């Protein structure tokens, strides 16, 4: 965020930033920016590629010695597109049936999430302070009963999203991150629950519920699903 470059440099701290959206940086004009062409969410480019990341960070740091700002330097390396395995299907049959529940789906994924945590040594869940069954319960409550406070629901939903995607990364044929995100929306009861709760949030009298429903629940790229009946 280029505004921080202005704020800190004016207080005497030289800054250099990575830019993911060149048009934004061209408007904000921070003192020094390294523009990269990487996917939003991956400012250093490639997970688990220390050499690549180090080259990006070194290029950003090198800008600190320049005083001809505001400047935007173009980082020369790109990240290749992921191969598209059209027709990939989730190898784990989550077997939604007419009597299936979100709680059962969450439970079925637990062993895969355990496997993911064992492999990476960490999880990024844990913002809400709830365990996953409790987070799922809060979402069910939002669907069937009174809406919980927006912040509590947001934190529970973001924890569940991390849980599902981390669990799916441990499937035997895990596919790419893009495939796993598509799986979440196409094939899980969790994805369906998010789409189902959105209209309830938008119709709430609480402005925080409306912010969640309109902006911070469903990614822009998935909102087309809301118009499906």
């Amino acid at each position: 965020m280029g505004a921080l470059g202005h704020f800190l440099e004016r207080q005497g701290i030289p800054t250099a930033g990575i830019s993911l959206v060149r048009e934004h940086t061209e408007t904000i004009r921070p003192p020094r920016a390294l523009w990269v062409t990487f996917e939003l969410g991956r400012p250093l480019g490639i997970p688990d590629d220390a050499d690549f990341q180090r080259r990006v960070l070194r290029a950003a740091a090198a800008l600190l010695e320049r005083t001809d700002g505001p400047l935007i330097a173009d980082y020369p390396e790109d990240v290749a597109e992921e191969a598209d395995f059209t027709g990939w299907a989730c190898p784990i049959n989550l077997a939604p049936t007419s009597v299936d529940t979100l709680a059962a789906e969450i439970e079925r994924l637990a062993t895969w999430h355990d496997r993911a945590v064992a492999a990476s040594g960490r999880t990024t869940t844990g913002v809400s302070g709830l365990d996953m069954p409790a987070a799922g319960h809060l979402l069910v409550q939002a669907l069937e009963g009174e809406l919980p406070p927006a912040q509590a629901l947001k934190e529970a939903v973001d924890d569940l999203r991390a849980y599902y995607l981390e669990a799916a990364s441990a499937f035997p044929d895990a596919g790419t991150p893009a495939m796993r995100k598509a799986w979440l929306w196409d094939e899980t009861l969790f994805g369906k629950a998010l789409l189902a709760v959105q209209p309830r949030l938008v119709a709430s009298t609480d402005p925080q519920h409306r912010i969640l429903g309109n902006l911070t629940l469903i990614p822009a790229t998935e909102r087309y699903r809301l118009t499906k009946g």
Partner: protein
Amino acid sequence: MVKRLSDMPEVEASHLRRIECPTYEDTPALAGKPLRERRIVLISTAGLHKRGDRAFRPGDGSYRVIPAETPARDLVMSHISVNFDRTGFQQDHNVVFPIDRLRELVAEGVVGSMASVHYSFMGAFPPAAAEPHAQHLAGLLKQDGVDAALLVPV
């Protein structure tokens, strides 16, 4: 590979176009010591914090403190936006918060040293909400002997 907004899928590009960017008078880029002598802080806007710290909320312009020795398994992300990839962070925190890479640049002698404490804002802040926090932070950075900040978005 993402080039310009005009190269992106329209649904993503239009979301990004709608984000209002502030404008400022140009801020002069300050001169400083050679890089190999500087003490550098990482400042993320990914909404990162230690598990158990206060989550970020809409409109939140404050920052969270991430000590340099924080284990990766303690880091979580509560950015309010759902319009960026999180699987990279789930796989490797350094793709968002390159603390180990900075440590390596120090070891190689490319930069002098790293701050004892690093920071994260949540980038969807209204700039006016973040400015007083950033001004306060600048004072803390000077106390830590920091000569420069690397700003990492998400």
